[in-house]
């Protein structure tokens, strides 16, 4: 019994923190999403009305929301898998037996993860500059006409994706490297004795052994990418023609620019549902495979 009491005692601080800084704010914003808290409520708190689910129904009828949702899904569905592929490829390179200076490359690839996004975005803005940018200079060498990366509605999102992939692959790479090192060498040995080629070893030994890691990396990347915000906020402000407006960006604008806090809270909860759905979907896909 005393053991149990001790356990509760030790858990209490953590529970208190979760309750105070996580659970209460979540409940508060859920309640907020059922009100029409706006600029008039800032002036006088009595200007709040409980409006039930009207924020949610307004949201579903809002063209800008669907545009933002479409952009965010585009970013996640295209950018997410690409990030995972790039991470795995670099992990394999860094982990290869013949590779030299492994610690150096691991550090170099991991560096973008720990640099500030704002500083990075400023440098990338130079890279993307239509006239003086390095990227267009490079294209020029191959005779490709300059692209207005951040000014063209069709190119702006791919440009943001490229930055996000570069910024985030290092984190996943480290996790893949750790997982690769955990694959027992005997399995490769046995495969080689059975006459498996390099590609076959990768498909039938490496990939299955990395299964759980894929789920983890996939979920973490999806959660992060569905919350796309700082890249477009710094680089494009959601433009041009709302082509890089993300759901979080819409929430920020509604909440902090126009102070429609009730509406913004509703956006947050819809986004939460999407993230939860994406997570459950991936877990389910993994379970059905095994």
């Amino acid at each position: 019994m005393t053991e149990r009491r001790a356990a509760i005692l030790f858990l209490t601080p953590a529970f208190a923190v979760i309750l105070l800084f996580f659970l209460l704010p979540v409940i508060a914003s859920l309640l907020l999403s059922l009100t029409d808290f706006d600029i008039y409520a800032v002036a006088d708190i009595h200007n709040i009305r409980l409006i039930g689910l009207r924020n949610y129904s307004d949201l579903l009828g809002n063209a800008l929301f669907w545009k933002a949702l479409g952009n965010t899904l585009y970013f996640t569905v295209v950018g997410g898998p690409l990030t995972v592929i790039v991470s795995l490829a670099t992990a394999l390179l860094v982990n290869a037996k013949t590779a030299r200076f492994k610690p150096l490359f691991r550090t170099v690839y991991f560096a973008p993860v720990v640099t500030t996004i704002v500083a990075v975005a400023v440098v990338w803005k130079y890279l993307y500059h239509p006239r003086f940018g390095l990227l267009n200079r490079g294209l020029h060498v191959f005779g490709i006409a300059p692209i207005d990366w951040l000014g063209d509605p069709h190119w702006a999102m791919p440009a943001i994706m490229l930055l996000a992939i570069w910024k985030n692959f290092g984190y996943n790479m480290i996790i893949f490297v750790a997982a690769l090192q955990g694959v027992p060498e005997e399995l490769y040995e046995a495969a080689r004795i059975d006459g498996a080629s390099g590609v076959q070893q990768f498909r039938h030994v490496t990939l299955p052994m990395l299964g759980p890691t894929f789920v983890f990396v996939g979920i973490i990347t999806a959660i992060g990418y569905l919350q796309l915000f700082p890249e477009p906020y710094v680089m494009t402000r959601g433009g041009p023609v709302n082509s890089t407006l993300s759901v979080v960006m819409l929430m920020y604008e509604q909440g902090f620019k126009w102070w429609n806090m009730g509406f913004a809270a509703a956006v947050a909860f819809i986004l939460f549902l999407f993230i939860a759905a994406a997570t459950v979907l991936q877990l389910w896909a993994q379970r059905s495979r095994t």
Partner: protein
Amino acid sequence: MSDLRSSRNIHRSTSVVVGLTLLLLCCTSRSAPEHLKFWGLGHEGEVVAKMLPEFTRRTGIQVDVQQIPWTAAHEKLLTAYVGEATPDLAQMGNTWIPEFVAVHALDDLQQRLAHSTVRAPDFFSGIWATNEVDGLVYGIPWYVDTRVLFYRSDLIPKPPRTWSEWMDVMARLKRERPNHYAILLPTNQWEEVTIMALSNHATLLNAGGTEGNFTDPRFAEAFQFFIDIFRRGYAPPVANTQVANVYQGFAQGDFAMYLTGPWNVGEFRQRLPADMQDKWATAPLPAPTVADWPGMSMAGGSSLVIFNASKKKDAAWKLIEFLSEPEQQIRFYELTQDLPANREAWRAPAVANDPPLAAFRIQLEHVAPLPRVPEWEQIATEIYHDGEATVRHAMTVPQALTDLNRKADAILAKRRWVLARMHRP
């Protein structure tokens, strides 16, 4: 992404630090010279620092200028107010004033104006009006902004004065140069069609600002005029993001007219090739009839406001008086090329003898404020949405007008409720 959450935590802890510092400051500043906190926006916030040593020399008041980028200014000001961290005074886009008055953030300056060097008649009346809400004054114009007609003087020898002359000029240009356009009216902007509506004396909203007034014949006529320009092929149906380079387009003659503001005077000088420099000019807006000339334009620009929470309102007012002096207004013009709000400053040779500015001087006497309700910017966005839809044949003119009224009424629903609640006994 995850940075967002961590940056929020950082904000929380910095606000604690800032709070503590303020606490220290308030208890130590009694003997020290007075310190004003002033938020300037964008370029203006940067250069105003050069004018302040003179103010400090005269009054002994120190001014700490914090520069806020324009793109984040609105949310920073509003967040500062909600977080009770407003500066003593700030520069503010004059269209935002009604919103900040609605939340009781701004100090009413009426009393101070009674005996001050700042006098309302010295300012352009349309611009001054943007600072008035329900008969009280909440801001003093710092610099002014409006739109006039920029045109190719080699293609248009005499700028049009009436709408029918305007249409004739466009028809002639289109006839002579079928592969080019006469005017650029970007479809993703609400300003152009709104200016035409103001020129036709449309009120946009009803008198109380509680309902849309877009089916009113004055707005309907202007909207029809705007759409006709596209229907007849005089303007390209493109958004300004689709125009790679406005200056190049203007120099090549892709279009010969453009409705824009004073910031483009400098840009045209800098970006148009040298042989184009004697081929462009500005003119006040054409009006529906000759008697009405020049047509009304929008009253834009920035004002200086004092926050209610400030404990140094007298010192803040001194700074506003200083920045409103004609000499300081001229100096500010030299530093920024922003047009002076004080009419006296327009007598200075630098302003008075600059040909493109003459049209602005005339136009500024004929500017009207946009509807002074906090919801205006949201309504304005709907104006261009429906305007664009009509240009692209997705709506007819009557449909667009009814739709605009419906949307404006929905946006203003809360305002009607709040006003009704206030007037209930």
